[in-house]
C-alpha cells in the first residue's frame, strides 16, 4: 500500500470515527434541547389555555395562538397530580398524513369539576431544524474529508517529493552503481537521509567497483600462470622416463589445473555479465535455441539414456537479448537438467508465449532451495562441479529482469522462467 493511500486511510478512518461519535452526541443534545424547549413552551401555554377556558367556558375546542391542537374533556375518575409530557401521532386532515406531536396532559380544576386537558404542539418544525443541522454537519464532514484528502495529496506532492526522488535514485543504484546524491534539502530529516544515503551508496559503489576490478584483474592475471602450468604439465607428461607413481601425481596436477581454468573462465563470465558487457539486442526464438542446444548436447543426453520431450506452444517465446547470454542461459539450464538427472530419466522443455520451463527427473536437493542459485553451492554427490552454472543462469535472468523459480515435486525438478513483458 502506498504511503499516501495509507496515511489518507488512517486520517479518514479516524475522522469518520470521531465525526460519527460527535454526530451522535450532537444529534442527541440537539434533540433533547429542542424537546425541552418544546416542553417549556407547552408549560407556558397552560396559562393561555386556562385563560381561554375561563373566558369561553370551555365549550369549544379550536386553535389558539401557539397551540396546534387542544383537547379538553371531563377527567371523570382519572386522577393525575403531575403534568405528563408525551409523544403521539395524529392524523392531519390537511396533508392526509400522520404527524408527530408533543403533548402536555394535565388536570385543570374548574368550577368543582376536573377537566383533562391535552395541549398538542407539532414537532415538525423542530424535527426539520434537527434535520437541517444534521445535514449541514454531514456536509461539513464530507467537505472536511475532501479537504484532508487533497491536503494530503498536496503534502505528498510537495513535502515528500524529495523522499520519492531518493527512492527513485536508490532504485537506479542497483543498475548504475552511481552514488545517490540528492539536491539541497530544507527539511532536517530529509537532509539527514540525504547525507546517510550519500555516504552509504558512495561506499557501496566504491566497494562494488573495487570488487569488480579485483575479480576482473584476478581472473585475467590468473590466466597466464594457468596456461604456463597447463602447458608445462603437458610437456612433462611427454617425458619417456616417468613411472606410474609420477604419472599419478601428474594426473592429479593436470585435473586440478583443468578445473581451475574452468572455474576461472566461468568467474570471468560472471564478472562480464555483472559489468553488463553483453549489450547486443537480438530477437531470439527460444524454440530454435533449445533445439540447437539439445542437438549439441545429444551425446550427453544419449549417453545417460535420457528422454527429451519438447512442448512448444505457439512457436515458443521470442525474447530480445544478447545472443551470448541466451546461449549461456539455455546451455546452463540444459546442462543442469542433464547432469542432475538419473539414468534413463527424462527432460521436459516447454516454451510458450510467456515462459520457459525445463523439468528433469532427479533426486531431491541436498541443500535448501534458497541456496540453489548461490555461487559454490553444489551437489556433493557430483565431483568436478563448482555450483556456478545456476548462479550464471540467475545473473542472466537478473540482467533482463526475467523471473526464475524453482520447484521440486514427485522426483522432478522444475525451473520456470517468466518474462516480464
Amino acid at each position, binding site marked *: 500500500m502506498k504511503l499516501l493511500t495509507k496515511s489518507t486511510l488512517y486520517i479518514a478512518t479516524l475522522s469518520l470515527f470521531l465525526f460519527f461519535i460527535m454526530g451522535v452526541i450532537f444529534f442527541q443534545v440537539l434533540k433533547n434541547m429542542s424537546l425541552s424547549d418544546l416542553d417549556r413552551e407547552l408549560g407556558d401555554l397552560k396559562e393561555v389555555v386556562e385563560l381561554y377556558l375561563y373566558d369561553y367556558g370551555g365549550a369549544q375546542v379550536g386553535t389558539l395562538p401557539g397551540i396546534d391542537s387542544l383537547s379538553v374533556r371531563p377527567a371523570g375518575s382519572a386522577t393525575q397530580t403531575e403534568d405528563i409530557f408525551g409523544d403521539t401521532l395524529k392524523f392531519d386532515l390537511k396533508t392526509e398524513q400522520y404527524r408527530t406531536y408533543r403533548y402536555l396532559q394535565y388536570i385543570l380544576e374548574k368550577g368543582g369539576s376536573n377537566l383533562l386537558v391535552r395541549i398538542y404542539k407539532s414537532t415538525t418544525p423542530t424535527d426539520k431544524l434537527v434535520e437541517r443541522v444534521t445535514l449541514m454537519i454531514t456536509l461539513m464532514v464530507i467537505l472536511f474529508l475532501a479537504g484532508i484528502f487533497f491536503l494530503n495529496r498536496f503534502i505528498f506532492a510537495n513535502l515528500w517529493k524529495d523522499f520519492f526522488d531518493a527512492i527513485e535514485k536508490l532504485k537506479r543504484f542497483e543498475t548504475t552503481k552511481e552514488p545517490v546524491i540528492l539536491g539541497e534539502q530544507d527539511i532536517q530529516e530529509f537532509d539527514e537521509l540525504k547525507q546517510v544515503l550519500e555516504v552509504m551508496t558512495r561506499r557501496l559503489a566504491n566497494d562494488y567497483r573495487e570488487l569488480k576490478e579485483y575479480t576482473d584483474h584476478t581472473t*585475467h592475471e590468473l*590466466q*597466464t600462470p*594457468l*596456461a*604456463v*602450468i*597447463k*602447458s*608445462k604439465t*603437458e*610437456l612433462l*607428461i*611427454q617425458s619417456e622416463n616417468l613411472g*606410474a607413481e609420477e*604419472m*599419478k601425481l*601428474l*594426473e592429479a596436477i*593436470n*585435473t586440478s*589445473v*583443468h578445473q581451475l*581454468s*574452468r572455474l576461472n*573462465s566461468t568467474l*570471468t563470465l560472471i564478472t*562480464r555479465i555483472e559489468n553488463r*558487457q553483453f549489450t547486443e539486442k537480438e530477437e531470439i526464438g527460444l524454440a530454435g535455441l533449445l533445439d540447437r542446444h539439445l542437438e*549439441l*548436447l545429444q*551425446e*550427453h543426453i544419449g*549417453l545417460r539414456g535420457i528422454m527429451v520431450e519438447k512442448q512448444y506452444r505457439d512457436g515458443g517465446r521470442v525474447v530480445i537479448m544478447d*545472443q*551470448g547470454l541466451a546461449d549461456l542461459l539455455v*546451455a546452463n539450464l540444459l*546442462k543442469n537438467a*542433464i*547432469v542432475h538427472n538419473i539414468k534413463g530419466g527424462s527432460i521436459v522443455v516447454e516454451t510458450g508465449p510467456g515462459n520457459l520451463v525445463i523439468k528433469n527427473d532427479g533426486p531431491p536437493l541436498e541443500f535448501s532451495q534458497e541456496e540453489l542459485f548461490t555461487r559454490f553451492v553444489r551437489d556433493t554427490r*557430483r*565431483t*568436478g*562441479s563448482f555450483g556456478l552454472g545456476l548462479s550464471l543462469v540467475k545473473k542472466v535472468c537478473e540482467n533482463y529482469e526475467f523471473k526464475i523459480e524453482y520447484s521440486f515435486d514427485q522426483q522432478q525438478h522444475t525451473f520456470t522462467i517468466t518474462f516480464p513483458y
Partner: protein
Amino acid sequence: MQILIVEDEASLMESMVSYLEMEGFRCERASDYHTGVNVLDKHNYLCMLIDLNLPDGDGLELVKLARDNQSESGIIIISARNAIEQRVEGLEAGADDYLVKPFHLSELVARVHSVARRTHMNGGEVLGFGPIRVEPEEHTCYVDDQQVDLTRKELDLLLYFMANRNRVVTKEGIADYLWGEYGGDYGSYDFVYTHLKNMRRKLMDAGCPDYVRNIYGIGYKFSLD
C-alpha cells in the same frame, strides 16, 4: 615447416616451442610487437601464432600486418580474452583460428595442423598413419583401402591423435578439442571413452592394429610401436 610465435610470456613461449619442436616444426620467436613485425618476412611461415595482448602493441594490428604480408600462412590467435566480439574481431582481421588461454598444447598442435591443411593444401590432402589413410576434407577414412565408416566426432578424434602422434594426450584435452565449451563441463569424461571405444573398435574391425595406448589413467598415446 616454420612457425612464428609472438608471445610475451616467456614460460608459455618455451612450452609451445618445446612441444612444436617435438612435432618436427621449427619455431621463430618474437616476444613483443616490434620483434614480431621485424621477423614477419623472415620465413615463409606455415602458421603464425599471435598473442593479442602484447606489451608494446596490439596483437590485432600484427594479425592484419601478417595477413597482408603472408597471405599463404595460417594465423592462429592465442588470447586470454574469451569474448565472442573479440573472436569475431580477430577472425575479421584475418586470423584462421582463435585459441583461448589456457589451452592444451596438444590442441594447439591439432589446430596448427588443421589450419595448415586449410591454407596450404587447398583441401585434397591425404594423411597417413600405418595402414590408416584419412582425407580430412572428404571426411573419409580408409584402412588398407577399405573405407571405415567413422562418425564425425570419431574422425575428429582420429585426426587429433594423428596430429599428436607419439604424444600423450589427456582426456581433458580431447574433450576440449572435440566439444569446446560443451566438453569437460559435464563432470564426466564418459563420452570421451565412448567415442574412443567406438573408434578403436571400428578401426580394429577393419584390420588395423590398436595404436591407442592408455597411459596411467592420465590420457592416451597414439603410436605405431
